[in-house]
C-alpha cells in the first residue's frame, strides 16, 4: 500500500447514491469549488474555501449567531482524532465545503471528515521517504480547494491533489528535491485557477521562489525566484520561456552569494483581488552571518507583490535589510481598506507592525507591537528603512582565535515578536488582533563547533523570556495610531492562529490546551475550552443547517519545543496530541 486510503464512510455514501441517484448527481455537480467561490470566501458564510478565510487573509467572518452574549453556551459538537502514533505540532487551518471538512495533520497527513457527524470519510497518509530532515517539526498548515480537488504540500516537497470525495490522487507535482533540503508545509493559495506555493527549507541555504501551477493539472505556469540575479520562467503554450531575472544581479549581494542566498518562501501567501496582486513573504538571507554579505541582500526578509498573470514582481518591501538576527520576513500581509486607502498590515518578526500602501509598497505607518525592539529605534517613513541602533551579533570569524567572543542580548528572539501564526483583522473594530511573544535571545560566537564532521564557525543562541509572568500576548493593534487597545497575556508563547467574527469575538488557542474567546472591543475573556493538548492551529467558523460552527485543530508542537532554549524547558510538561474539535451553541 503505497498510498494507504481508508474508505470507512464511502461504502455508506455509495449505498445512498444507489437509492437517490438523481439527487447525488445534482450535489456532485454542485460540489466543485470555483474560483468565484474562493474569491468571495470572506463574505460567504456557508463554507471556508481558502487559507485566511478569504484571500486577503483577514480571518474575519461576518457570522454573529455566536456572539458576546451567548458564547458562554459554546460546547463541543464532536471531536475527531488524527490517530496513529504520530503526533507533534498540528498547525493547520481546516477548510469546509459541501458538508466536508478537510484538515491536514502532522507528517503530511490529510483527513476528510463529515462536517455534521465528525465521521472520517477518508484519510491520506503521504509516504515519506527516508532521509528527510525537516528543519522545524513535521507540521502542515493546511490544504487548498479547487474544483473537485483538495491540494496540499508535503515534507518531501511534493504537491498532492486528491479527489475531495474519494481521497484518490489526481495529480502529484514535485516542488523540489527533499535531499537538497526542500520541503513544503504551508497552505497553498488559489489565484485565477492556479495553485500558488513557495518552498520551505529556510535553514538549508536554499533559494526561495514563488510558483504558479494549473490547479487542475499541476502543470507549471510560472516561477519567480525571490533572490536577485535568478531567472524567472513562464510557460506559454506548454513552452518554458525566460521571464526576466529577479532584481539586478549583484546590486545588493557581494560575489556569487546571491546564488545561494536563501530568502525561502516557506509560509503561505495572500491575494488581493482589488489590486490583483499576490503577496508572498521571504525568509532570512544565507549564509546566516551578515558580516559576510554586506548589502541589503534583496529580496530576503521582504514581502513580494507579484502579478499573477505575468509572474513578475510589481513591488517589494524589505523589513530587515542585511538581516543578522534571523528575522524572516515571511509573516502574512493582510489587506484592508481604511480612510479610502488600500492598505495592508504586517506584523514582522523584528517587532515592528507595518502598514503599507498595497498599491505600491510604500510604508504608511510602522510602530513596535512588542515591548522591546533592540535592533532599530524606528522605521524611517521616507526611506522605509529601519533606523538601526547598531546592535548586531559579532563577526564569527573573530572567534577563530578560539575565544567565545561577546554575548549580546537582543529582543525579539529569532522566533520573532510574531512567528508564522496568522493574525486577524476586524473591519468592525478596525483593529488587528496579533498573537505576539515577548522574548529575546543571547547570541554569541561559538569558537568550537562542527558541521558534517568539519570544524565550523557557528553562533550560539538561547531564547529567554522577557518577563516572568508571560511570554505570549494577544494584542489588539490600531493600525492608524499604533495604540495597543487591549492585550491578553499568556504564560506559554502563543503559537496558534487568530480569528475574529461579526459577533464581536476574537478566538485563539494556547499551548496550555485552551481555545479561548475574547471580547473584540476590550479583550475580556468570555469563554474557554480545554482541548486536551496545545492549540497551535488556526480556528475557522462557518454556518451549516442554520447553526454556526467553530473548528480548531489541537496538538502541541512546532518550533518552540525544538528551538525554544530556556522557553522549551518551560513548556516541557505540555503533552502532544492530534485532533480536530468542532463547537456549536448548546441547545439548552
Amino acid at each position, binding site marked *: 500500500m503505497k498510498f494507504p486510503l481508508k474508505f470507512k464512510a464511502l461504502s455508506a455514501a455509495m449505498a445512498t447514491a444507489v437509492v437517490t441517484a438523481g439527487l447525488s448527481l445534482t450535489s456532485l455537480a454542485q460540489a466543485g469549488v470555483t474560483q468565484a467561490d474562493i474569491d468571495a470566501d470572506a463574505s460567504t458564510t456557508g463554507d471556508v474555501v481558502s487559507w485566511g478565510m478569504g484571500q486577503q487573509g483577514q480571518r474575519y467572518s461576518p457570522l454573529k449567531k455566536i456572539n458576546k452574549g451567548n458564547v458562554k453556551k459554546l460546547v463541543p459538537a464532536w471531536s475527531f482524532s488524527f490517530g496513529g502514533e504520530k503526533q507533534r505540532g498540528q498547525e493547520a487551518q481546516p477548510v469546509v465545503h459541501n458538508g466536508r471538512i478537510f484538515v491536514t495533520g502532522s507528517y503530511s497527513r490529510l483527513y476528510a471528515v463529515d462536517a455534521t457527524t465528525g465521521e472520517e470519510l477518508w484519510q491520506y497518509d503521504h509516504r515519506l521517504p527516508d532521509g528527510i530532515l525537516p528543519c522545524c517539526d513535521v507540521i502542515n498548515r493546511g490544504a487548498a480547494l479547487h474544483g473537485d480537488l483538495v491540494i496540499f504540500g508535503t515534507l518531501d516537497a511534493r504537491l498532492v491533489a486528491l479527489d475531495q470525495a474519494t481521497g484518490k490522487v489526481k495529480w502529484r507535482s514535485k516542488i523540489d528535491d527533499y535531499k537538497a533540503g526542500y520541503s513544503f508545509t504551508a497552505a497553498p493559495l488559489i489565484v485565477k485557477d492556479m495553485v500558488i506555493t513557495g518552498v520551505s527549507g529556510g535553514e538549508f541555504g536554499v533559494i526561495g521562489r514563488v510558483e504558479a501551477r494549473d490547479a487542475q493539472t499541476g502543470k507549471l505556469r510560472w516561477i519567480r525566484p525571490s533572490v536577485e540575479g535568478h531567472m524567472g520562467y513562464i510557460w506559454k503554450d506548454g513552452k518554458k520561456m525566460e521571464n526576466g531575472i529577479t532584481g539586478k544581479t549583484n546590486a545588493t549581494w557581494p560575489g556569487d552569494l546571491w546564488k545561494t542566498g536563501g530568502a525561502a518562501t516557506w509560509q503561505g501567501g495572500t491575494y488581493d483581488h482589488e489590486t490583483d496582486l499576490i503577496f508572498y513573504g521571504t525568509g532570512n538571507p544565507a549564509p546566516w552571518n551578515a558580516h559576510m554579505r554586506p548589502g541589503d541582500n534583496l529580496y530576503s526578509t521582504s514581502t513580494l507583490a507579484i502579478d499573477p498573470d505575468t509572474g513578475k514582481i510589481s513591488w517589494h518591501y524589505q523589513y530587515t535589510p542585511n538581516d543578522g538576527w534571523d528575522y524572516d520576513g515571511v509573516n502574512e500581509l493582510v489587506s484592508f481598506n481604511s480612510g479610502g486607502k488600500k492598505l495592508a498590515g504586517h506584523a514582522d518578526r523584528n517587532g515592528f507592525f507595518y502598514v503599507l500602501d498595497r498599491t505600491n509598497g510604500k510604508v504608511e505607518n510602522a510602530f513596535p507591537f512588542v515591548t522591546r525592539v533592540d535592533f532599530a529605534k524606528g522605521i524611517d517613513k521616507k526611506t522605509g528603512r529601519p533606523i538601526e541602533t547598531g546592535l548586531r551579533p559579532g563577526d564569527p570569524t573573530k572567534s*577563530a582565535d578560539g575565544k567565545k567572543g561577546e554575548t549580546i542580548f537582543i529582543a525579539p528572539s529569532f522566533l520573532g515578536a510574531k512567528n508564522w501564526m496568522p493574525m486577524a483583522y476586524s473591519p468592525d473594530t478596525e483593529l488587528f488582533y496579533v498573537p505576539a511573544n515577548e522574548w529575546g535571545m543571547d547570541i554569541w560566537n561559538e569558537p568550537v563547533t562542527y558541521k558534517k564532521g*568539519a570544524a565550523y564557525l557557528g553562533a550560539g543562541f538561547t531564547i529567554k523570556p522577557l518577563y516572568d509572568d508571560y511570554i505570549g500576548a494577544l494584542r489588539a493593534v490600531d493600525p492608524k495610531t499604533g495604540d495597543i487597545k487591549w492585550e491578553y497575556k499568556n504564560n506559554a508563547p502563543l503559537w496558534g492562529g487568530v480569528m475574529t467574527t461579526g459577533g464581536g469575538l476574537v478566538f485563539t488557542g494556547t499551548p496550555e490546551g485552551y481555545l479561548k474567546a475574547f471580547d473584540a472591543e476590550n479583550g475580556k475573556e468570555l469563554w474557554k475550552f480545554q482541548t486536551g493538548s496545545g492549540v497551535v492551529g488556526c480556528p475557522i467558523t462557518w454556518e451549516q443547517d442554520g447553526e454556526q460552527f467553530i473548528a480548531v485543530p489541537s496538538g502541541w508542537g512546532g518550533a518552540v519545543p525544538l528551538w525554544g532554549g530556556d522557553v522549551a524547558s518551560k513548556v516541557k510538561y505540555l503533552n502532544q496530541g492530534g485532533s480536530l474539535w468542532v463547537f456549536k451553541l448548546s441547545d439548552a
Partner: protein
Amino acid sequence: MQKLLKAVLMSMLASVFMASALQADEEQTALQRIQERGVLEVAVYADFPPFSYRGERGRIVGIDVDIAHALAKRLGVVAAIRAVGADENMEDDLRNNVWKGHYLGGGVADVMLHTPFDEAFAEENDRVSFIAPYYREQIVFAVVADKAGRGSPLEIFTREKIGVELDTLADFYLLTAYSGRIRDQVVHYRNMSEAVADLKAGELSGVAGPRSEIEFALGAGRNGYAVGPIQMPGMRSSGWDLGAAVRQGNQQLANALDQAMIEVRETGELQKIFEKHGSSYQLPSRIVRLKPENSGVIAYSDDAKLCLRRP
C-alpha cells in the same frame, strides 16, 4: 579533557569491576546485543566522497565505509551501513544518529564515524562518548601551480577566483579575510567535487577545503597544482581530529571499538584504506593506544608523531 579522562577512568573501573556494577551490566548489553545479532550498525554521512558515497551500482563505498567494515570484523560481526544526511550542525547529527534518534523515527546507530575528537566539544556533548580518533583533517589550498608563489599565498585571491564549499570553515574564512577583499572572488559550490571540476576546467585559480576531499577530487590529475596548507592569519588552527561516537554509557562497546581501532591502525590497514581512496593519511594529534602494555586499559595519548598537525 575531563570528558576524555572520564572515559579512561570508566574503562579502568569497568575492567576491574566487570559485571559487578549495574552500570557494567547495562554497558555489556549494547555490545552483547550487537554480538548476538551479529551486526554493528554504523552511521556515516551520505554523499560525502571520499568517505562515504554511492559508487558503482549504487553501493555505498569510501574510507569511512571501509573503516566500518574493518572495525566490525574485529568485533566478530558484520557492519550495516546507515548513510545519514547532515543536519545543521554536529549536535543535531549526534542527537539524530547516536543518542536519541530523529523525531521522524528510525532509532539510532550503534556508532557514528567522522565525529570530532575535541575535548571542548566533548564537554558540551555529554550524551555521547567520543572514542577511537583515527584521522586528522586539515584545510588545504590547491592552487594552479604557475599562479602559486606569486605574492603572498592568500593575496593572489584578491584577484583570482577561488572555489569553496558553501557554508564551511574555508568559505567563512575567505569571505571575511583581508577585510573582505577576497569576498568577490569566492565561488561557491555544493561540494568539493564540483569545485575541483571547475578548477580542472580552468574556471578557478584555486580551491580551499578539507585535504581528503580535495586530494580525492583531484585524483590522478594532481600535477600542475600546488596542494597544501596556507598560513591563515587569525585562525587558531586549520585542522581537527576525527573519531567515532557511541552513546554515553555503552562503555564496553566503546572499549571494543577503541581496541579494534588500535588494531586497524597498527596493522597499517587504516593507512591503506586512505591510500586506496586517493587520500594521504594524516595521524590525529591524539591516538588511542593500550597502556600499559596489553593490560586492556585504553588511553588517548598525544605523543603520536604530529607529522602534519600544523603547516
